[in-house]
């Protein structure tokens, strides 16, 4: 790259994560949300599930930015995201019970359920890590 074409302002924040879009939890929850909303056997639950599943990555993205200003706000948003994942898991569980006899649908929902449970842990770990670095107690790390 020639020096002339090179723009100084392009430097990113010194972190392996350029933007919230690089966060793995954000990417996976987006994928899962699409997977859920594209299921063809959802009826009256579809709207609510769509609303909740789309809110989760939004909250993660917002909290990524907020943590630089105030960790408390970011923490609240991540807590909300965790609560929403729990709600979603309950909703999928109810659906799963509804389709107990349909093996294919049950398996699809099972897979999504496992992935969401894993993402819940990931968000929780992200919150803990951010707390250590950006939170008040992050300054010494010791209990």
């Amino acid at each position, binding site marked *: *790259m020639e*020096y002339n074409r*090179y723009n*100084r302002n*392009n*430097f*990113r924040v*010194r*972190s*392996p*994560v350029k933007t919230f879009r*690089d*966060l*793995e939890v954000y*990417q996976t929850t987006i994928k899962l949300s699409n997977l859920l909303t594209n299921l063809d056997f959802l009826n009256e639950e579809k709207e609510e599930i769509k609303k909740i599943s789309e809110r989760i990555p939004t909250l993660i993205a917002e909290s990524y930015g907020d943590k630089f200003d105030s960790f408390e706000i970011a923490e609240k948003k991540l807590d909300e995201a965790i609560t929403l994942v729990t709600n979603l898991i309950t909703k999928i569980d109810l659906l799963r019970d509804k389709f107990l006899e349909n093996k294919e649908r049950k398996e699809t929902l099972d897979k999504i359920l496992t992935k969401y449970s894993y993402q819940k842990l*990931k968000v929780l*770990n*992200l919150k*803990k*890590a*951010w707390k*250590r*670095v950006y939170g008040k107690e*992050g300054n*010494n*790390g*010791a*209990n």
Partner: protein
Amino acid sequence: MEQTELIEDKETIESNKKLEKCLYCSGKIVKRGIRKKKFEEVQIYYCKNCDKRFTSQITKNKTYPLRIILDTLTLYNKLYSFEEISDLIKNKYGMPLSSRIISRWIEEYKNYLPFLRMREFVIKNYKRKEITEESKLIHQQIYNFKFHRAKSDLILEEEFRHFKFKPLKNFLELVSSECPHQIFREKQERASEKKEKFNLNEVKIVPKKSSASQFANFVIQAVSNNKERHEVLEEFMLYNDSVTVAIEVPVLMDVDDINHYKFELGFEIPFTINDGEYLTGHIDLIQIRNGSIHIMDFKPSAKKEKPIEQLTIYALALSRLTGIRLYHFKCAWFDSKDYFEFFPLHVVYKKKKGKINKNQMKINLKEEVKNEN
């Protein structure tokens, strides 16, 4: 205890501790039978020259295999109690272990356990789960990233000059949850495979005696498999020494980083990266000691290798990711015998010839003032 597990362990234990020459006269040796001990079988060697039969020193007067001793010491520094350690060892290897033996080993091998001086502080201030951060990074192969939180806190607080390395701790803290795994999973160029050579004028490679080599010498005898050696050594150093803060740390650089070094700082870097591509790597060991961050790489035959490119790229990437100046980094590679280190800054930045240093400028100014008066 599963039978297969025992057999596997036996094999690894037996195939280590190979001797190449006579311990007494350095003459040629031959294998002469196997000695059956209580928990392991040991190769006996015979020297035709001095007519002596002997075994490797590492197994001499030891009932238990070295691997079990290593595991026990590591578990102790992971803050397990004697009772818990003997239960864990019994479950893993099927061998009974008394508290007396454990305390004797700790006393005997305390030279390899500098962490003991920090242990009391760590017990008081941290829960066992919080001492380390561990995560399995499933990149193109599996990397066991580990970060010793308690030790890094202590090192940063212990010496004032280490205070400036706090960004490194913050970076390591975020690796498990923020690492962009998707980039590492794609096939990116690896720092260890980079062929472009840096200009090595003015770079001094200094051979030194380091405790890292002593650790390697001690640990390697317990494991025969080369890949396993790497892991066992890294883990042993992380838990038992007083300077290693993290192992298998993923780092990456993109075109912006390279441009920053080239045009902003004027560093000589003999390659570029295409837009959207990354240069990735995993640092074996990161140590904080003597006011510098040491990036270390274990190479089985250190004397024959010169991984300067690889280590310099690691240092450049870590410097960019943490915001710590390259001046504070040192790179080193080692095996059980040798240890070599160099400054990565000297690789990429050369002193400009003809440039007047500050002291010279002051003298010149003083002379000018005198002449004017």
